[in-house]
């Protein structure tokens, strides 16, 4: 048995704590695992999702016996905002073949934080395509690396095809303060822009 079971710190602070889902996504190697580790106040976890070979999400176990399936590991972290509320962060891969997983995971989510790497902006096109198809509002966090080129904001917004009201802020996924700033930008955006106004 996993030694974590005896560690009381893994449990909810209170069984009535309200849990709110936030999606974290972005291209390969952009810092999804890192930012979830930075923000989580429980040891970060990996949840396993099962998909069929055609990319459908498996939602029951019928007929799966002997069928080849694919498992996808998602980074997961939880941060308590007091005893009554916690944000649950689901690191979701940003590739088109995970469309069905996106449709499923984004159910009931508050919003999404999309990480981008300015050294390879074109890698973000797939995830931008995915998020645009969801009924889910988002903010873009530019995860800055030492060799990241600094482009003018307008150029980056145009490259990512962002709506004028979509927040775009810089962060360092290893750093708690700037990572919190990115989440805060998302939450403030959700409050400021009612859902019905953001649809194109």
């Amino acid at each position: 048995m996993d030694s974590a079971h005896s560690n009381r710190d893994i449990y909810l602070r209170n069984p009535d704590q309200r849990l709110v889902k936030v999606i974290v996504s972005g291209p390969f190697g952009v810092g999804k695992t890192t930012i979830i580790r930075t923000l989580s106040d429980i040891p970060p976890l990996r949840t396993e999702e099962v998909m069929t070979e055609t990319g459908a999400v498996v939602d029951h176990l019928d007929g799966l016996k002997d069928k080849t399936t694919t498992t996808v590991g998602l980074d997961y972290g939880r941060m308590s905002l007091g005893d009554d509320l916690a944000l649950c962060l689901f690191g979701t891969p940003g590739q088109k073949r995970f469309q069905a997983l996106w449709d499923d995971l984004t159910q009931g989510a508050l919003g999404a934080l999309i990480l981008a790497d300015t050294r390879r902006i074109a890698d973000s096109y797939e995830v931008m395509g995915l998020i645009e198809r969801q009924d889910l509002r988002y903010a873009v966090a530019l995860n800055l690396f030492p060799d990241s080129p600094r482009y003018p904001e307008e150029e980056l917004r145009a490259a990512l095809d962002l709506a004028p009201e979509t927040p775009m802020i810089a962060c360092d996924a290893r750093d708690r303060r700037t990572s919190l700033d990115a989440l805060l930008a998302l939450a403030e955006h959700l409050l400021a822009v009612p859902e019905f106004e953001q649809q194109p």
Partner: protein
Amino acid sequence: MSRRLIPAYLWTGGRTHPSRNVLDRLTVLRAATDHLPSDLTSSGRSVLEILQHGALPLAEVAAHLEMPVIFVKVLVSDLFDQGLLIVRAPAPVESDAKPDQQLLERVIRGLRALQ
């Protein structure tokens, strides 16, 4: 990402569908009893054991036990039907309601307090 067959233990002596489609990754689970029946499957027992010390969301139980989320949903359905688990939707109100202003203000306050 890995390709593999779902292990055979997933089919032993249980249903294949979650009986409740209200089960979500963030459904909060608690043990209803500290008495574990002797006829539990080993996976069902693991779920109840980890919940002896506190409440956890379904996805976290799955992660700790290194079991796929869908499998834990099915297990949890069974355990709930046997009266062994207490389950609660992620939010006290309907979970699919659009985020309300009060919740967002609470999130913002909470994040600012951590800064």
